[in-house]
């Protein structure tokens, strides 16, 4: 695959060019906090900051989106499906974000029902990944078998080189077309990467992988699924739930959480059906029309989230729904740490192993 070298000015010009033809989402800073969000000038893009708090998923799974538009005024109501429009580019996706897209793809695109909104958005989104410039202590990607330099799933991958320029790697055909288009436009500062830039990129990737190695020593997935298999009724969940405030932080910031609610609104004869993010941590999530709630307390709700990430999804899809981005670890107001839950489950599985084997 092609390797290019692009200066930061060159990248700036590329983003400016893109803005005219696609909705661009990138990391930007708001009140001191890094978030993924739409940008309307290249100057807003902040690639050197920490992992953005708001995850990448909002690009293919927005907080709320219209599904149907209805006109109820006539004899026969008119109903029209709304298709997302236009092209999108998401810039600066971290390897954990790429892994998260792959999980969301399985949920929304596999099996008998293919989600049309998601499909349309996914097909019209160009993904430009970024090798993580730093690895936080809350990052535990390595536990899930990939690391901060892994671009799989992206169309293109940027790696910041020590001199300030970026190494730009083409990973898919679509990525190649994009680069060819940019070259045709004659972007100053976009050149073929020589051997030197190539090896500088490899060295940078090796450097961040080494940083991530530290967390690999601290967190492991070994025995997690099995341990949880036997822990559903453990008093542990009630203890953990005691301090959980049942907010939406861990789910809404999670790049793989994908639950939504479907609602309608009407104004005069015009009506709309839309979907919006929902979370299993809210009591309304499982509230039935008759008033019954199968998950009446925080214990059941928190347990559901943790099992979905570390057990249920594995039984169904053969992989974890947690990708180790660390957002929930870092932002939980009461320091509930999924890595500790993993360690607890692993310990349980070891104990079971011991008792089974005598």
């Amino acid at each position, binding site marked *: 695959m092609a390797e290019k070298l692009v200066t930061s000015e060159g990248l700036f010009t590329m983003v400016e060019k893109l803005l005219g033809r696609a909705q661009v989402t990138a990391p930007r800073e708001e009140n001191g*906090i890094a978030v993924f969000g739409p940008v309307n000038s290249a100057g807003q893009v902040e690639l050197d900051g920490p992992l953005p708090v708001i995850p990448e998923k909002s690009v293919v799974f927005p907080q*709320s989106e219209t599904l149907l538009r209805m006109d109820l005024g006539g004899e026969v109501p008119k109903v029209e499906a709304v298709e997302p429009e236009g092209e999108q580019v998401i810039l600066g996706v971290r390897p954990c974000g790429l892994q998260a897209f792959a999980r969301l793809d399985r949920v929304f695109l596999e099996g008998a029902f293919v989600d049309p909104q998601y499909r349309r958005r996914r097909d019209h989104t160009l993904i430009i990944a970024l090798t993580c410039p730093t690895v936080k*202590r809350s990052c535990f990607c390595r536990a899930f078998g990939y690391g901060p330099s892994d671009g799989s799933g992206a169309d293109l991958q940027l790696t910041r080189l020590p001199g300030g320029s970026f190494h730009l790697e083409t990973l898919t055909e679509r990525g190649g077309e994009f680069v060819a288009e940019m070259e045709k436009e004659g972007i100053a500062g976009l050149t073929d990467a020589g051997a030197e830039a190539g090896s500088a990129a490899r060295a940078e990737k090796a450097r961040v992988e080494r940083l991530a190695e530290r967390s690999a020593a601290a967190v492991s997935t070994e025995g997690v699924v099995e341990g949880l298999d036997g822990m559903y009724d453990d008093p542990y969940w009630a203890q953990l739930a005691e301090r959980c405030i049942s907010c939406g932080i861990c789910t*809404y*910031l999670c790049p793989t959480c994908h639950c939504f609610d479907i609602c309608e609104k009407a104004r005069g004869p015009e009506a709309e059906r839309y979907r919006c*993010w929902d979370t299993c941590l809210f009591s309304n999530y499982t509230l039935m029309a008759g008033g019954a709630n199968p998950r009446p307390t925080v214990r059941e709700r928190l347990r559901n989230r943790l099992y979905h990430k570390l057990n249920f999804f594995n039984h169904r899809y053969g992989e974890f729904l947690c990708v180790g981005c660390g957002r929930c670890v870092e932002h939980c107001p009461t320091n509930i740490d999924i890595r500790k839950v993993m360690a607890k489950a692993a310990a349980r599985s070891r104990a079971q192993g011991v008792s089974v084997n005598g």
Partner: protein
Amino acid sequence: MSEAIKTAAPVEGEPMPAELKTAEIPTRRGPAPGDPEFLGALRDCCRSLLAEGHVQRIIAYRETPDSLRPEVAFFASPEETGDLVWDLFCNTNICKYLLDYRTFEGRIGVVVKGCDARGVVQLINDMQIPRDKVEIIGICCPGQIDPAKVESAAGEAWVSRVVAGPDSVEIVTEEGTEMRVPLESVLTDRCLSCRKPNPPVADVVFGEDQKGRISDEVFEQIAELERMSSAERDAFWNRHFERCIRCFACRNVCPACSCTKCVFDQQEPDWLAGERNQANQHFFQITRAVHVSGRCTGCEECDRVCPVGIPLRLMNKKLWKDVKDLFDSPLPGTKLGVRSPLVMWDPKDADSFE
């Protein structure tokens, strides 16, 4: 208008139950945080409260392997208190957990900083929990440290522990390197402008009164907002509200948000619809801010937990400033037995009820 209200609406108009009028601060004090005896004395105090049956539960913090992030913990027996901890990383405001004990038979001890203690008092004043059910173990707070600031100061190295001194902190990394940074550079935002670090009401107190940090930054920012045209102000808030992910963490930690069924959770009618449009985002933020005004203790826990950095404190402090100017009432949570002027009425009010 403000004059009329000021003279006509007495803040302490309604009689309060007698038990609310107990002495506010004991005279004997335990050692201060930073004193080598402090933690032992705090543990002893909690242990004997449980052992002697004065309380049946203590809400405090427990050590974890990550020394920057102690956990909120609920201690039910004296034996459990061995890993109870209180240091400069106990950021979480624990007062709201008292609501989980509304029907608990027994007394609950809470280990609280100045800002947390105001929350406890506000919950008592709002009749959420009776005063005699709570044992307030207050700590005169030297200011708390924001783990994220420490971690960013340490750069790529992992922080192993932090040793706090009066004006600076020493950050020790896993690799064994040490660096010293000014305390103010790593303090939690709210602590940088905290004027009331001492618990206003307590049954036991640790440490001597702290001065707090007098910074006018927040009020300067508010003055700036007040000078804006309404269109500019609208744009300012829009930019922030747009980012709100509606996680409700701000509400869930707030001691002034004590409704058993919150308006934002109602489904029929769904006052706050799920759609993230401008009207809904504004409706949520403004409704909450107005509803807590007059009872907001200025603890800034909402601001601290908001994951997307919405400057909630500006809104809450602006409303507090207005309530104070209009009604001349004390900061909520600083005095037992005070009702918020916005939840009272007086038949002699200067404005008519029609």
